């Protein structure tokens, strides 16, 4: 109480510019305790389990599996693949994140059209299968280091575009990604906001998505995470696998380079 009063007194002088720190200790401890208990059993594993089967299953008009899909480490190599994504792929001539790469594989190997995802609904039909495959693939990089190769000029360009997108303010609320993710030690409600402009924050954020979200019992891929960020920014909707989502991914992944992959994560 005493601490509160002192801080409050400060606030009189500083009006709107007073520091936000308040007696938050107990609430923060409680939340930390909650998260530690949740980490014990992550339902993402249910998606991983299903995804491994789908990866190997002969599917689509071409009745092929994804076992010849090259995620950057050679055909069929899943181990460590997502830790090194996004990357520049010569065969498509594009920088691709995991999901846009999987879309290419599904199209060329299996004949599954990209429309299934671009016009798809989260958790439904082919999109649900995508989510399961993503869970499986990112689980195969768990505990590895984020290791994105920035040597290709296409990657450098995507990084620059991603950075510009990160600070781009627009819409009825004037928000940019940076509004919430550009400072240290901030929260929305009780949720900590990683500062994605710095290594520690990017490692924490990029490193722990995709993730299972306990609030709705859904598994969210990085594309879904970015899509919902833009929804809450009150932007129009980013198209699944579009360049802005990949550019932002390159921006985050490069900043996170060297951090630990903790995917699939578990979130509020």
């Amino acid at each position, binding site marked *: 109480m005493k601490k509160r009063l002192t801080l409050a007194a400060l606030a009189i002088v500083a009006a709107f510019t007073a520091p936000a720190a308040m007696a938050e200790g107990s609430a923060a401890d*409680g939340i930390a305790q*909650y998260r530690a208990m949740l980490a*014990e059993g992550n339902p993402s594993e249910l998606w991983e389990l299903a995804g491994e089967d789908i990866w190997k299953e002969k599917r689509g008009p071409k009745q092929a599996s994804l076992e010849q899909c090259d995620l950057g480490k050679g055909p069929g190599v899943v181990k460590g693949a997502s830790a090194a994504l996004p990357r520049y792929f010569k065969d498509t001539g594009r920088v691709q994140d995991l999901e846009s790469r999987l879309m290419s594989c599904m199209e060329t190997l299996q004949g599954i059209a990209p429309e299934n995802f671009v016009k798809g609904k989260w958790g439904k039909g082919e999109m649900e299968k995508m989510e399961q495959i993503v869970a499986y693939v990112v689980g195969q990089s768990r505990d590895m280091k984020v290791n994105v190769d920035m040597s290709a000029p296409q990657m450098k360009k995507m990084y620059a575009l991603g950075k510009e997108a990160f600070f781009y303010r627009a819409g009825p609320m004037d928000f940019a990604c940076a509004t919430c993710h550009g400072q240290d030690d901030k929260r929305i409600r009780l*949720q900590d906001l990683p500062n994605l402009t710095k290594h520690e924050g990017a490692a924490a954020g990029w490193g722990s998505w995709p993730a299972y979200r306990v*609030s709705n019992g859904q598994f969210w891929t990085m594309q879904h995470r970015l899509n919902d960020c833009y929804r809450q920014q009150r932007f129009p909707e980013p198209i699944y696998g579009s360049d802005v989502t990949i550019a932002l991914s390159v921006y985050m992944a490069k900043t996170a380079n060297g951090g630990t992959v903790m995917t699939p994560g578990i979130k509020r």
Partner: protein
Amino acid sequence: MDQSRRNTLKASGGLSLFSLLVAAGMVKPGVAEAAWNKAAFDAKKMDAALAALGAGSPAESAEVQLTAPDIAENGAVVPVGVVSNLPNTEEVAILVEKNPNMLAARFMLPAGTEAAVQTRIKMGQTSDVYAVVKAGGKFYMAKKEIKVTLGGCGG
């Protein structure tokens, strides 16, 4: 009495036999409800739930430990663990006072199984959570308040 008979049934056949019977159309799924303690799960008052469990008004005991966070970031998933240090603990139940139906889960522990279970429950709002334990034929309990917060910016 009923309980031990049920244990024997389950031990010999288990759910797999039961599901075979369901699949074969020999048993209607509804029959499963007969074993499930409907009265306890349907109870909308604490004393009714406790009565349906045969627990009466259990004594608070330091030998029963309820592990749960002080604050749940999301009421949809609240991790709860119960440990009983009482000898011959045979049953553990988890109840949430302010949920529409108090009883969340009930565990029957045969000899050889430790009285230490963890699960996750839903909570509609901040409430006392009870761990009710049956040991040596008597009931004991522990309780803890868990705060449920509003989360996300969609709030």
